[in-house]
């Protein structure tokens, strides 16, 4: 697989572009790459909000391009979670409403669990603040809680800690790790250097 805008010379030593690669459920992956090498594109291709690539993506052998709009919606509610790099919070809604709008769809977490997660990530006092008034680091954590409010087999985290210090990085990483392990799910996190500090050695490091 390769994005439409890439030429074969652009990909260099990549393990994913122009190769066959399988993300296996239960294993965790840290995808390391320089800016502009297509991390966000990879996440978008797999999450099915972009399809400007050549090659194919398969879910358990089924070609992703054959999925209908409703099947993609179901996939996003039950199988694949995504924390996009640009976060995509609704600025006019409060922090907790941004989480609720997802949780209303999946019904996965209780209100109490959501508030606990806010507390654990140290933003409990920002619950009722409009998302547009939060700092980027705070937004990043709200968006993460939103991404965790659903069952998933794989969670794609596009630079999840780019605006967090090491301490917060570890808190975020342990929350993600616990949630994923509880469902025997895979974590796939990208970074340009500031890696997610997962509390485990069961990690595949991949160069994109």
């Amino acid at each position, binding site marked *: 697989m390769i994005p439409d805008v890439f030429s074969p010379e652009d990909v260099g030593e990549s393990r994913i572009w122009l190769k066959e690669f399988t993300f296996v459920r239960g294993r965790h992956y840290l995808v390391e790459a320089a800016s502009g090498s297509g991390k966000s594109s990879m996440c978008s291709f797999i*999450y099915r*909000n972009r399809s400007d690539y050549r090659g194919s993506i398969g879910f358990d052998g089924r070609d992703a391009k054959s999925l209908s*709009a*409703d099947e993609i*919606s*179901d*996939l*996003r*509610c039950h199988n694949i979670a*995504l924390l*996009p790099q640009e976060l*995509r919070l*609704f600025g*006019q*809604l409060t922090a907790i*409403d941004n989480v*609720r*709008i*997802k949780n*209303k*769809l*999946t019904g996965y977490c209780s209100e109490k669990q959501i508030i606990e997660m806010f507390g654990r990530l140290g933003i409990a006092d920002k619950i009722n603040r409009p998302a547009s008034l939060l700092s980027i680091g705070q937004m990043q954590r709200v968006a993460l809680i*939103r991404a965790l409010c*659903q069952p998933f087999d794989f969670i794609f985290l596009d630079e999840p800690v780019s605006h967090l210090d090491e301490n917060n990085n570890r808190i975020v990483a342990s929350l993600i790790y616990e949630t994923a392990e509880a469902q025997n799910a895979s974590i796939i996190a990208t970074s340009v250097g500031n890696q997610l500090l997962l509390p485990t050695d069961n990690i595949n490091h991949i160069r994109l």
Partner: protein
Amino acid sequence: MISTLLRKNISAWQLAAYSVACLVGLSILLISINFYADIRSAQSQDRQPGNYIVLSKPVSLLAALGGSPSASNSFSPAEIEDLASQPWVRRIGEFTSADFNISAAVEFAGRGLSTALFFESLPDEFVDTDLDQWHFDPASKEIPILVPKDYLALYNYGFAASRGMPQLSESLIKQIPIRIAVAGNGHYDVFPARIAGLSSRLNTIAVPDSFMTWANSYYGDKNDVRQPARLIVELSSPGDPAAARWISDNNLDSSDNNAASGKAVYLASVVSAVVGTIGVVIAALSVLILLLSMFLLVQKNSGKIRDLTLLGYRRSQVAAFYDRLIIIINCAVTTGAIITCILVSRLWTGILKEFGVDGNNTILIVLAAAAIMGAVTVISVASCRKMIKKASR
């Protein structure tokens, strides 16, 4: 929560403009439908004969001087076929005249009256009397007769007044026993008869077709096959100028003494069609406003719609918000237009009531409004879904 999110960019002005324009257009349309239905029912309840004309050929000088009347004055099968093919003709009935001698005798108020008479018959569906009474039974031998209303007036105000005879009411004249003597083909018989009804449509003395067929074969000359000299035509649209043009082009006489009312109905139909068209145009333009306003709304919200689908919302769940918006507005507009139409129609129902016409078209109006706005809603919802599909990609 979706509605709080998507409500943000709704332009109250655009939706209000649509509501007002659509309300005006739909009201005008409904009012014209209501008006049309009223004048139509006025026409049918009034039993206006404007629907019917009787055609005959003008009597030529030659025929008047004793030439063969059947040759020049009757309609040939080709001529009848040509007439039947005209778009303004719904049905044609042929008059059959009696091929035997008839005389009638009446006895009332102590005096006897006797006169030579003529009969014509025409198909039962053209006869404007109670059809239960309108048949001839050879066993009872009683002949029902239909007489023009004008004859009763002639008698009451002309004959009876000058001769000092009693005037007759419509119900009384039906009670008078009449004896009809029929002669021809070597037979002579006397039948009892009664006046079954008074016709404002037919300018003849009519008997049932069944009697005429039987009597013509019994008393008449079997070898004499005659073509009808008069035709009754039911018009598909009363007062249609095309009919008058065709009749004068073919040099025929028509007894359309009620043409004025037919013309009035025709003109009123044209007026309501024109007004209705204006209503349709306004309503159609208002639907364009709605679609444009929805398009702008979806455009402004396209980022949010895209983000919602990224969260896993289905397009139909997002579209439900817009569907609800359209349905609520359209229901309000429909109700408003129905109420407006009913209120406005009160302006003329009073006048119609004075004519004895009870024009109550509420059900028709409600159905028409529901059908029109149902279609508008379906179109708006469908195109809104299309816009959302585009925005969510």
